């Protein structure tokens, strides 16, 4: 509680970082504009597409299924993130953490069953 100054100084650091974050692109782009030569030609104004001639609309639709797969992946990714530290510190955490982990895994299992029955795992 006495360390209120320290507490507020932390926000000062956040503020400095915010200012840096805003200033950096502004300064960098402005410096670039000052230094680079300006010689436009038609070829320079075409869209860059890895060296080939651009032939497509720039707006491409992805299948929405990628999104659901990504979501599924994230769920199990998070599960691993939780399981690793638990496994490492298993001896210290004891039976309570084991029970909690079992509940957690069981809940995720219901989620997986849900995804399976709702045909998320099938690619049409």
């Amino acid at each position: 509680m006495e360390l209120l100054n320290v507490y507020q100084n932390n926000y000062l650091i956040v503020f400095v970082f915010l200012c840096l974050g805003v200033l950096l692109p502004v300064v960098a782009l402005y410096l670039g504009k000052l230094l680079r030569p300006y010689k436009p030609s038609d070829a320079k104004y075409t869209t860059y597409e890895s060296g080939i001639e651009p032939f497509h609309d720039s707006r491409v639709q992805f299948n929405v299924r990628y999104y659901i797969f990504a979501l599924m992946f994230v769920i199990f990714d998070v599960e691993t993130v939780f399981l690793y530290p638990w496994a490492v510190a298993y001896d210290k955490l004891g039976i309570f953490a084991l029970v909690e982990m079992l509940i957690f895994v069981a809940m995720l299992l219901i989620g997986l069953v849900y995804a399976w029955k709702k045909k998320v795992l099938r690619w049409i």
Partner: protein
Amino acid sequence: MDLETLKSFEWSVMTPEFIILGVAALLTLLDLFLPKKMDRRILGWIGIVGILAAILSVASLLNVESTSILDDSFTFDAFGKSFKLILLVGSALVMFLAISYDAKEGMEDYRGEFYYLFLSALLGAMIMTSSGDLITLFIGLELLTVSSYILAGIRKHNLQSNESAMKYVINGGISTAITLFGMSYVYGLTGTTNLFEIANKLAAVTNGQQAYLLGLAFLMIFVGLSFKLAAAPFHMWAPDVYQGAPTPVTAFLSVISKSAGFVIVIRILISVFYNAAPTDNGEGILFKMHDYLAVIAAVTMIIGNVVALKQTNIKRLFAYSSIAHAGYILVALTTMSSNLLYSIWFYLLAYMLMNLGAFAVIQVVTEQAGSSKISDFAGLARRSPILAVLMGILLVSLAGFPGTAGFIGKLNIFVGAFYGTPHYVLAAIMIATTVISYFYYFGIMTQMFFRPASDERKLNIPFGIVVVLLVAVVGSILFGIMPNIALDFLNNLH
């Protein structure tokens, strides 16, 4: 934590939560594995049985002394018991509405989910009622709101339902973020998430700068939670969401979600801010912030009641009416009288009964008419006299006439406004806006009793609706004539 401490906890006080969690998980699995053609209403009935079992287990635990387990993150006290009963009974009635709900479109494949999402939302609300820790409070709040977002949009192929869910997600997300930011300040100042420890630490704060930060935290938490209560000026989402959501979900949002909102407001405001950063004469920060509460209460009552006058859609009208009722309860919160808990608890009980009853009638009428205009109520007295009379009783209770639970609820709050420092202005606004509310409640009455029906078909009333109406009307009259039952019940809790 080893096995011995784990065994020493009294897990039995969590039985109601375990029952709801188990039934919700069971319904999820059943919904996935039952044959596709089977009627999913059976899941709704299992849900009701589960809720009734949870009510019974709360009732059997009523005499248990206040206990807290898991480092106070679950506290089973009189506050939790009393509010848990309101939430459980309300949810049971909402489930009856949901079973009788027959949407024209967009519900075909999701009827099962409809039932267990109510249960998971209820579980979130129940965790909030008996939580002594900021983290579990927040988890409960999120469980409730995330389930409600899905419920609002469960009619997947209905445009209004989609709009409603979208608006709810965006507004709810922003308000949650604001609340959480406020909570982070409280944590930053105290270094703990335990509400009791926070209260102790904050009572020792004397530094003006810290009190200033605390004031900011208070405002942010309160503004964020005002969204959940649909208190003006943070109410704009409510009419659109209420209108688009399926009727049982609207009933759920306006009763259970709102009660849960008040639960978390009371928990945080009273336990964290009541004695925080006291001035020389011992008044906590809540007294300094008292004017903000008063303004929000007054604006909520005025906007809710006045804008309701212009509504032509019955669900929007009830959205504004529910905003107005939140305003009345905020008056009780502002005055901080000694009967604060009783008056808020009783008002929420009365409001749960009368509002759910009214929504039962709304559901029958709007489903038959295929729209939700107030003019669909025209000639209800001729089409179904009993339904019209029951709706009449509920409307009278909502308006707050003597002899009904709504009247006693308002009376408690009104009298409470004169305890300690009297709040004449708030009390006057409360009376004036109550008079304004007569216009729109009796507008529905005139439609029902004095307008010719455009549609002469008889209404068929499903069983679930009958149950809800019976409980609602009997409860409204019983607590209106003998409010001492509720008072004795609350006084005998410990």
